[in-house]
């Protein structure tokens, strides 16, 4: 099996064959994105591979850089500005920042400029009744304008179309008649028939973009793989890193707009299952930021929406990921009052930290780790890059502060760790959890180096560095099931007489899913509901198999509400809002090879760590591959492997677990 993660700069390809993991990295090519993927795949070999699982940031990158095809938006007359409005709110932390603008608003960078958003004379009401029939003459007039503007795609989202698609279907015919069959069209009642017009509209717009971006690419990829001898299944990962067969993904491609970090969480859940650890906080520390996500009760914490930018919401199931502006490339600066500040600015990969020697002059966290002796200048990123200590030194020297040199370096490293620790705590608390119930999984190139240093601030149970921390995210692509899914909305009070209506909604979706999947699988129903008087929904209330029993749904709702938010309101009636069905087909997954137990670890080399305190300290240096299961390493120590270095701070111990994972705990 193979997994490929197409990033903005690099494309990572992972192959697992007979338990052996092989990885290769190729430069991404925005002009011909399929070519590097195929090159990487050929390099690792496709013979006998059963699955080829694909994730990419292509969709998200296209949106956030606004490298987008010209698309129009049609909606009910008088409402074309729902796309400028969003859900109104500003990020709370930016309330006193007068430079803030809604990133997708008309005065910033709208996805569809206002003149390509056109109103259509028609109106359905919330109960599906007809207020105003669709005025075909008027619609043709508007489509004439779009034809003159030569749009490549059209997104249609009419008010209350989630109740009845009749006008959207009619309008789609008019669009195809006027603009031709080649134009990409998505209608909201098919793409995402959920209530609340803004998210449905933006979902439909993003869907059209993704059709234009992914359709040709996916066909080229499939064809190329077949030519290279691949006979298995090509699957695309969605925003929750569940897998969709590629042709199914193309039906509603908004779902695959972004799938990188979610794979890491999926990988965490998969490893957690093997380790018997069901509550994890997953921290992927990269060059510019740290992605924090949760595995709760064995499953990734998934949300029913995804935000591409602040409040640019689409109705895609997505793993909830919080990003902190602290990573290896985070820039160290001095505040007005003389504080050492880490981030949010980053040196990125180009020019990168000063020690990369590519022209970066400002000090970064990686520079600090190098000066502290944690990183080996000759063995960074598997020896791909030699780090220049002199430049790191100069960068820290250049800071305008009376602080002594060793303090600048030591503070920078510890503040980076503290920033991540605070955000990790916030993510857990926001989800109603208690950090003391969680294991922290540290991965990404800089995770194993930074996170153990934050252990004493975190109050988590322990820190675990998984096997292959540098490729851990990509391995998540080989840790998931195939899932076909569908959802729709109907505001239905959960009273006993509502059962037939709810049953009908589920059955209709299930018929469609089995038709699309054409195979057997496990069917799971769930719904999003709310307490009367609330404006938001509580998602993913599981619906038991068998005929709908409303009393059970209500009870399940209260249980879910309590688990998610910590309270229970049994005396307030519940309203069903959206209903969801998934058909799960098991797919081949990676297994974690047991690590051989062994005796005492090989005698380590001794190195010097600096800037932890006033004096340098001696630390043991280990090769991770030489550590057998059961081996215990007392800090201070560093454990090296190809793409990562684990720091075991003074006062901590690391123990090698049965699957080769490193378990780091504060010494008792």
């Amino acid at each position, binding site marked *: 099996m193979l997994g490929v993660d197409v990033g903005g700069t690099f494309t990572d390809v992972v192959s697992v064959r007979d338990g052996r993991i092989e990885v290769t990295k190729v430069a991404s090519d925005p002009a011909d994105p399929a070519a590097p993927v195929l090159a990487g795949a050929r390099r690792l070999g496709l013979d006998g591979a059963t699955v080829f699982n694909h994730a990419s940031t292509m969709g998200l990158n296209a949106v956030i850089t606004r490298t987008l095809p010209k698309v129009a938006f049609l909606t009910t007359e008088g409402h074309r500005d729902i796309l400028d409005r969003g859900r109104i709110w500003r990020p*709370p932390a930016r309330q006193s920042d007068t430079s803030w603008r809604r990133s997708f608003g008309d005065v910033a960078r709208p996805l569809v400029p206002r003149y390509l958003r056109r109103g259509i004379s028609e109106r359905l009401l919330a109960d599906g009744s007809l207020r105003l029939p669709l005025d075909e003459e008027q619609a043709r007039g508007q489509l004439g304008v779009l034809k003159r503007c030569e749009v490549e795609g059209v997104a249609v989202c009419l008010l209350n179309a989630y109740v009845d698609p009749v006008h959207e279907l009619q309008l789609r015919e008019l669009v195809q008649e006027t603009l031709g069959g080649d134009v990409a069209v998505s209608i909201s009642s098919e793409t995402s028939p959920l209530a609340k017009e803004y998210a449905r509209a933006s979902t439909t717009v993003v869907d059209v973009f993704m059709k234009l971006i992914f359709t040709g690419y996916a066909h080229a990829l499939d064809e190329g793989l077949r030519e290279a001898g691949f006979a298995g299944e090509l699957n695309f990962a969605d925003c929750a890193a569940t897998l969709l067969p590629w042709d199914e993904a193309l039906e509603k491609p908004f779902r695959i707009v972004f799938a990188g970090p979610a794979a890491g969480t999926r990988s965490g859940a998969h490893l957690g299952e093997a380790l018997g650890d069901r509550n994890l906080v997953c921290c992927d520390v990269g060059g510019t930021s740290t992605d924090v996500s949760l595995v709760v009760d064995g499953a990734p914490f998934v949300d029913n929406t995804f935000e591409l930018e602040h409040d640019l919401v689409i109705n895609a199931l997505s793993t909830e990921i919080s990003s902190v502006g602290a990573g290896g490339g985070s820039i160290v600066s001095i505040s007005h009052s003389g504080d050492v500040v880490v981030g949010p600015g980053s040196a990125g990969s180009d020019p990168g930290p000063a020690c990369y020697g590519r022209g970066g002059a400002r000090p970064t966290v990686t520079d600090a780790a190098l000066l502290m002796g944690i990183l080996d200048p000759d063995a960074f990123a598997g020896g791909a890059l030699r780090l220049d200590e002199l430049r790191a030194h100069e960068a820290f020297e250049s800071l305008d502060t009376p602080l002594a040199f060793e303090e600048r370096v030591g503070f920078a490293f510890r503040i980076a760790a503290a920033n991540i620790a605070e955000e990790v705590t916030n993510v857990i608390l926001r989800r109603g959890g208690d950090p003391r119930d969680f294991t922290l999984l540290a991965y990404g190139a800089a995770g194993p180096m930074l996170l153990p240093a934050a252990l004493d601030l975190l109050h988590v149970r322990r820190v675990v560095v998984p096997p292959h921390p540098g490729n851990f995210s990509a391995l998540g692509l080989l840790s998931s099931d195939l899932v076909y899914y569908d959802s729709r909305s109907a505001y239905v009070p959960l009273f006993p007489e509502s059962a037939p209506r709810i049953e009908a909604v589920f059955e209709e979706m299930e018929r469609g899913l089995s038709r699309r999947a054409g195979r057997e699988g496990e069917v799971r129903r769930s719904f999003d509901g709310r307490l009367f008087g609330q404006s938001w929904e509580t998602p993913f209330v599981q619906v038991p198999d068998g005929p709908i029993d409303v009393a059970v749904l209500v009870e399940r709702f209260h249980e879910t509400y309590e688990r998610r938010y910590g309270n229970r309101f049994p005396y307030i009636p519940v309203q069903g809002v959206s209903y969801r069905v998934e058909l799960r087909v098991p797919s081949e997954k990676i297994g974690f090879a047991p690590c051989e137990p062994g005796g005492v670890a090989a005698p380590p080399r001794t190195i010097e760590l600096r800037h932890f305190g006033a004096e340098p300290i001696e630390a043991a240096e280990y090769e991770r591959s030489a550590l057998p299961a059961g081996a215990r390493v007392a800090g201070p120590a560093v454990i090296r492997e190809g793409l990562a270095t684990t720091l075991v701070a003074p006062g901590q111990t690391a123990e090698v677990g049965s699957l080769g994972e490193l378990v780091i705990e504060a010494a008792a």
Partner: protein
Amino acid sequence: MIRDLSPAEFDQRYGCDRFTATVLTNRFGYVVEHMCARLLTSAFSPILRDFYDFAATITGPPAVGWPTPAMSASIVLFTGTMADSVRNSVEEYGVDRLGPGDVIVANDPYRNGTHVNDLLFVRPVFHEGELAGFVNMKAHQLDMGGVVPAGFSIAKKNVYENGLVLSPRALYRGGEPVPDTWSLIFDNVRFGEILAPDMLSIVAELELGERLLAETIERYGAAAVHGAMAYACDAAAERMTAALEAVPDGTWVGEDLIDCDAAGDDEEYRVRVTVTKRGGRAEVDFSGTSRQARTCINATPLDAKTTVGIAFKYLFDPEGWFTSGAMRAVDLVIPEGTVVSALPPDGAVFAYWEQSQVMLSAVLRALAQGVGEAAIAGDRGSADIHSATGVRPDGSPWISAAQVGGEIGAYGGNRHGDADTQMLSYQANGIGVAVESVESEVPVVVLRHEPLPDTAGAGYNRGGASMLRDTLWLAPAQHHLMSLRYKRAPGFGVHGGGDGATGGIWITEDGDETHVAGMDEGVYRYPYRRPFWETGPGAMLRYVTAAGGGWGDPFEREPERVLRDVRDGYVTVAGAARDYGVVVTGDPEQDPEGIAVDREATERLRSAR
């Protein structure tokens, strides 16, 4: 300057080293954010979850002078009130009476600012038997009694109509609930079964905050924690002073007004401020402000402190958590008995936020004369909240609160660019409600909701436009209005920019249009000539919000940006020529990509000004 302190001096002054001070400053901010994060998930009420109508702070103990080193990024309207109200409440209750596990509550606006619905919760934190600080939350409660359910009316005439007033008292003592206090509250408020879980959640968040602060003290020691509190406040004070020093000295006057109160349109209410800036200090004097209004549109001095703090933070120190130190460089001078310093029992305070809007306008107008390019144009100036109630054919009541009136409106332009049109207001933030959600609950159809062309204050960077919203009411309805700023454009222009348009409200029924509120050919249409507006089925309600002001000379605006506005319908061809001196040719409606700037004609028009 703090940054120049030697390590020894720093330790001496703040009881810890620089690294610890940095980490602890950050910690304080996160402790309040953690408390809010949890309340946001556990609260029942939309006003907390969708509108962040709450805040959390940390306060140092009396022995170190009650510093407030961190205030959550939630509602800005509580910003200036928290430091004073925590100190005042604890002192009135009695510092000596406090023990571990206590929670003090209070809500009197004349003591604490804002309004009675905002209940302040204070929990002392002890360390080794000593009072080591406080964690606090203030949060809007759905109801506090009074004559109007939920309180949202501007017609209440005194404290008796307004609701229950709680002087500081114990809600918990030693971890045990105090029945007298719980009963006092729940014997007097409506919707108790919804209030109770919100209040219990708040108490749980206080416990979390207490635990986090106590752990921090345990780990770093009380001296370091208290030193870092002082450090956080000193650093904020220094940033403000330095920012003020960078502005030329001066004395500037700004004023703005509220049209009327609900007792009559015979009196306008003016807020006047004189801002004096000398070196790194400033003073804001409210002399010349109108006496208090006869209905509950008044505010209190702590609300004035909030607004001045926000204006200064916007202009001079936009980053980071708000601390009590930010106001060290600024004094307020406030006459008693004004609309911003009303007194009981007749100076009723409920819609304090409308007064905060006017104060902000006055302060920003004054500062615009001194800060040059940094000036900020006025926003739409009001929350323009509408509510409607009625009864369905089956006899069940319905209510629409703050959903389909003028709640969404424009910001003003500033040096960073054009302003967004669809926001709340400068001092409010929240999640807007979906049309489909409203229509599924209330017998209303939103016919249109869109910006009006040529309304935005013109400028090199323009303001946001007026938002028009037409709603069709399918059933009989009573409409309650809270619109107070339609006489004069609240969206003032700055730095050479133009004012935004004014707003208004209309009702059309059986073909007859009534101008409910706003200016009608020089005549003010007073919206409170009726206590509420009744409509029958099929009536249409129109709201037009005021627009935001422009920043900078509109004739300097690049013609391409004007062209884009014409193409997008924010500016008409005629408006482009009149307001921007840009001549656009073509038909923006039918051939939006075919329109163009006539360079020569533009040149002529612009040079002829």
